[in-house]
């Protein structure tokens, strides 16, 4: 698939209207030449184990695909579109090599369409399953929330693959969007994903990334605004085991006045070589007066041999902001908390369990998908059983 010049032009004219660029984020472009093969020294690649990406970064087009099992409430449609149509729908141009490759190699995109004013009472559920890590799969998706619609979309990833996908979420004016991406891959999967969100005027969006499985998972969640008054809440929860690399990169681009972004990511790590990366970039452009932003990342290190990187970055080009703050903390179990619980008779293992549940609890409650909350609690439980509970029983 090639992108037409017309499509490129519209992207370029958009960029010209907004010439300020974050030095932390490469400029968007569909042209692969603008996203050369990384060496690993680039700012956006320095934390990622390139070798373990298993050739995705110079991957060719492929016939392999994930199987999609979909549950679409009435009125919601999933259709095939061309890459050109994706651009017309307002797709945000790729800003790294995997997303540019995904567009170039996918051979067409999918459109998940939630009509204007629709308020389906059940979540849209997309279950994507891969058969084998030998399969190289490209994905290009546009999710359109029509004006004043209110809906929840869950993307669930299971099985295994080498999967590189770009998803644009276009949130219409006044819409209320809840998008959740769950990475429950098998141990060997490699997943590079970029969810790019455009928030309409007075619209609100909540995006949640939940990552438990996979060998290497590297996800971007980018937000920008199509008008004033938009609000974005970016949530994330991850649990890295032995040898896993889980990387979450956020970028809130405050390109409109009176917009809000609120980022909360929490992770737990256990086992030799568990590595998590959290990058929280916020850019407040000159015109973005009266905005509010807050970003927070907390990591709980459960065993020796783990490593959590946590880097908040705030670039501010205007002084006229309502509020901007960030917090980042990585720590072990708090001995005082454990002592307090144990002094009430609760065993050490159970106390650790309570503390970890407590750590994730508020976040899980915020997810806003009732059927997922229990599943997430259970998954946290399974993860804990692997390590934290094992080494202290008795």
């Amino acid at each position, binding site marked *: 698939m090639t992108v037409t010049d017309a499509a490129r032009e519209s992207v370029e004219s958009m960029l010209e209207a907004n010439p300020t660029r974050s030095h932390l984020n490469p400029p968007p472009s569909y042209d692969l030449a603008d996203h050369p093969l990384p060496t690993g020294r680039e700012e956006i690649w320095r934390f990622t184990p390139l070798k373990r990406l298993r050739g995705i970064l110079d991957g060719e087009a492929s016939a392999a695909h994930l199987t999609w099992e979909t549950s679409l409430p009435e009125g919601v449609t999933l259709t095939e579109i061309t890459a050109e149509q994706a651009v017309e729908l307002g797709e945000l141009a790729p800003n790294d090599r995997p997303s540019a490759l995904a567009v170039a190699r996918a051979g067409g995109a999918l459109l998940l369409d939630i009509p204007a004013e629709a308020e389906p009472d059940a979540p849209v559920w997309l279950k994507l399953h891969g058969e084998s890590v030998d399969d190289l799969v490209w994905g290009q998706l546009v999710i359109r929330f029509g004006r004043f619609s209110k809906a929840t979309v869950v993307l669930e990833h299971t099985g295994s693959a080498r999967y590189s996908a770009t998803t644009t979420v276009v949130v219409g004016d006044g819409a209320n969007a809840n998008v959740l991406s769950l990475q429950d891959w098998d141990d060997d999967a490699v997943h590079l994903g970029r969810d790019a969100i455009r928030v309409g005027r007075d619209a609100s969006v909540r995006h949640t990334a939940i990552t438990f499985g996979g060998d290497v998972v590297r996800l971007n969640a980018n937000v920008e605004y199509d008008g004033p008054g938009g609000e974005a809440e970016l949530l994330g929860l991850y649990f890295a085991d032995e040898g896993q690399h889980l990387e979450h990169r956020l970028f809130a681009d405050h390109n409109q006045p009176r917009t809000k972004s609120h980022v909360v990511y929490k992770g737990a790590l256990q086992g030799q070589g568990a590595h998590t990366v959290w990058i929280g970039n916020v850019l407040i452009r000159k015109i973005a007066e009266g905005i509010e932003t807050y970003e927070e990342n907390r990591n709980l290190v459960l065993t020796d041999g783990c490593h959590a990187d946590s880097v908040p970055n705030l670039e501010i080009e205007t002084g006229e902001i309502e509020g901007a703050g960030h917090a980042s903390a990585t720590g072990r179990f708090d001995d005082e908390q454990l002592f307090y619980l*144990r*002094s*009430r008779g609760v065993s050490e293992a159970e106390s650790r369990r309570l503390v970890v549940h*407590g750590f994730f609890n508020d976040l899980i409650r915020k997810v806003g998908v009732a059927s997922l909350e229990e599943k997430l609690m259970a998954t946290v439980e399974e993860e804990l059983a692997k390590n934290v509970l094992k080494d202290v029983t008795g």
Partner: protein
Amino acid sequence: MSTLEIKDLHVSVKTEDGPKEILKGVTLTIKDGETHAIMGPNGSGKSTLAYSVAGHPKYDVTSGSVTLDGQDVLAMSVDERARAGLFLAMQYPVEVPGVSVSNFLRTAKTAVDGEAPKLRTWVKDVNKALQDLNLDPTFGQRSVNEGFSGGEKKRHEIAQLELLNPKIAVLDETDSGLDIDALKVVSEGVNRFRSQEGKGVLLITHYTRILRYITPDRVHVFVDGKIADQGGPELADALEAEGYDKYLNKAPA
């Protein structure tokens, strides 16, 4: 029957310059159903004694013994001590974000009893315990101690005391930071607890105020990691009038 026996207890903490001895030989026996008050100036080692009995990992017991009904407390883990019947109401209760009070109380009750409490009576018991301590029932949904005022934290400790109903309660400055109404509410809770058969109380305090509501059987004056004096309730009155000065002056410079 419950007897807590502390014999010649020496405790130190690790510091940059090596271990520092804080308790320098404490001997104290709380017999069946007795209430003992420990009074002493700041830094004299009162909390150290409380924490050492409860098994806080920060404190190293270098010699001496602690037994509960003849059982070696020092050989038990922190949670084993609680299950054996010891309870510590802390001077600074710890916040546990994301863990609701009701979940915490149920987990603790299940642990100390060795079985889950009967659901129907348990909910009633929790509500009553909270109510008795003047805590709104909505506290059940809040995270343990998170955002509680100082007074609420202390009242929450006593609500736990009543629900878990141990053999021996060690109360570390439960009275500090309480206004007079809260002090009464807390004292009533402690009195309900100790009015039961055979319950021992070790009440650590800085002030005699709480002893007007909870009359001790014995009063110990704690200075520099040791018991400097002991007597009946009248000793508290003497301390109220004279303060700790005479004990402090006796201590070697």
